[in-house]
């Protein structure tokens, strides 16, 4: 028979069948509700076609990371829960607009969660009067963590620790604190241009640190 596999790029197979044998891309088959081995991107595509089980699978993969992120930004369980729900409904509503060439599905989902959390935190007036200290890493003692997520967190935290202090502070306050660049310029007493360049340099350096050999490149959850 006409050999179907020849057209695929010689990438290392990254998926496995039920007997844990590698499965080449394109040879993959599933039936509804057996979605555990599909890529995130395929799940988003199925969600765009109204497959509720695909949305459920995406939640099972990223709901926990999403909730942790929302909780870090919002520091309130009820608000974090609402933000995660809004974000996943955003995934459901706009799945058909997702462009796989523009980035990973997990990044897209967590971007929606972050954006939603930041919108809410900026609306919460009481946050405005709080000091900047509140954006620092809260204690994780006593939190029962998923092993894979703990590994990812440690990796990101260790990269953050290796940034110059000013860059780390700016990234943490902006991303986890939800402060806008203008707010940061005012509160840190720095020109806006300085804040912008710290964000740019901080993100570029983070990228290098995360890509260093010895660190896992893939962010795809396999658990």
């Amino acid at each position, binding site marked *: 028979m*006409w*050999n*179907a596999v020849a*057209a*695929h*790029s010689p990438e290392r197979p990254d998926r496995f069948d039920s007997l844990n044998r590698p499965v080449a*891309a*394109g*040879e*993959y*088959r*599933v*039936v509804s509700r057996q979605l555990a081995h*599909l890529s995130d*991107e*395929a799940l988003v*595509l*199925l969600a765009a076609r109204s497959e*509720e089980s695909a949305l*459920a699978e995406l*939640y*099972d993969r990223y*709901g*926990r990371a999403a*909730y942790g*992120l929302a*909780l870090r930004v919002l520091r309130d369980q009820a608000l974090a*829960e609402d933000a*995660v*729900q809004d974000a*996943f*409904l955003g995934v*459901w509503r706009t799945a058909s607009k997702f462009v*796989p*060439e523009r*980035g*990973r599905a*997990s990044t897209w989902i*967590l971007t929606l969660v*972050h954006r939603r959390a*930041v919108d809410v935190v900026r609306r919460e007036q009481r946050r405005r009067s709080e000091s900047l200290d509140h954006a620092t890493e809260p204690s*994780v003692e006593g*939190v*029962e963590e998923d092993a894979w997520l703990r590994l990812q967190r440690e990796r*990101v*935290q260790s990269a*953050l620790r290796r940034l110059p202090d000013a860059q780390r502070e700016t990234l943490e306050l*902006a*991303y*986890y604190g939800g*402060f*806008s660049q203008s707010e940061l310029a005012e509160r840190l007493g720095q020109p806006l241009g300085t804040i*912008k360049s710290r*964000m*740019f340099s901080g*993100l570029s350096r*983070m*990228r290098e640190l*995360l890509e260093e050999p010895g660190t896992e490149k893939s*962010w795809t959850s396999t658990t």
Partner: protein
Amino acid sequence: MDLHDLTSAYALDALDADETEAYERHLAQCEQCREQLAELNETTGALAFGAASPAPPPGLRSAILEAAAAERTNVVPLLRRRRLARGLAVAAAVAACVVVGLAVWAFRPGPRHVVAVVKIGPTRRATLTVTGLPDAPHGKIYEAWVIPARTGKPRPAGLFAGPGESVRLRGAVPRHAVVAVTLERAPGVPAPTSAPIITANT
């Protein structure tokens, strides 16, 4: 305000509402910024994993799924019909089947992630939707094939010009057949002349 240098702040969601609006207008017209943003988003996406992640409240999952189901059925009548059809299929104990093929296509300028979804109805009639492909070049067309396991011989099953189009496949898709897509000379050929871009095993 130089809009190019707002990309990092935008990736961190650190622009205020006015700046965000201005930047998004700019983004629609600036390929360079879109590329840079895609890169920066991978890094901010990593930052998302930097937060501690306690288990979410147990009711959150079902709340999301119920709200999602309610939205689709209330807002989009077409999908209600689809759900009804699915219910009938289950009632007839003939489960409709969704098959997904995945491929990475070495396409210039960069590899593309191609996803093919084949939805097979209870009567083995099927639709094919492929995403991730570029529009077919001038004078070419994408051709879908059904390859029955018994004969192994590709049968022409439909044509499409670009990504996202749903193609109703000609003829029934027998059990264990392979659905494949090739790029062919327009207006299509009776037998494939090139290796498939993507296949899905049913």
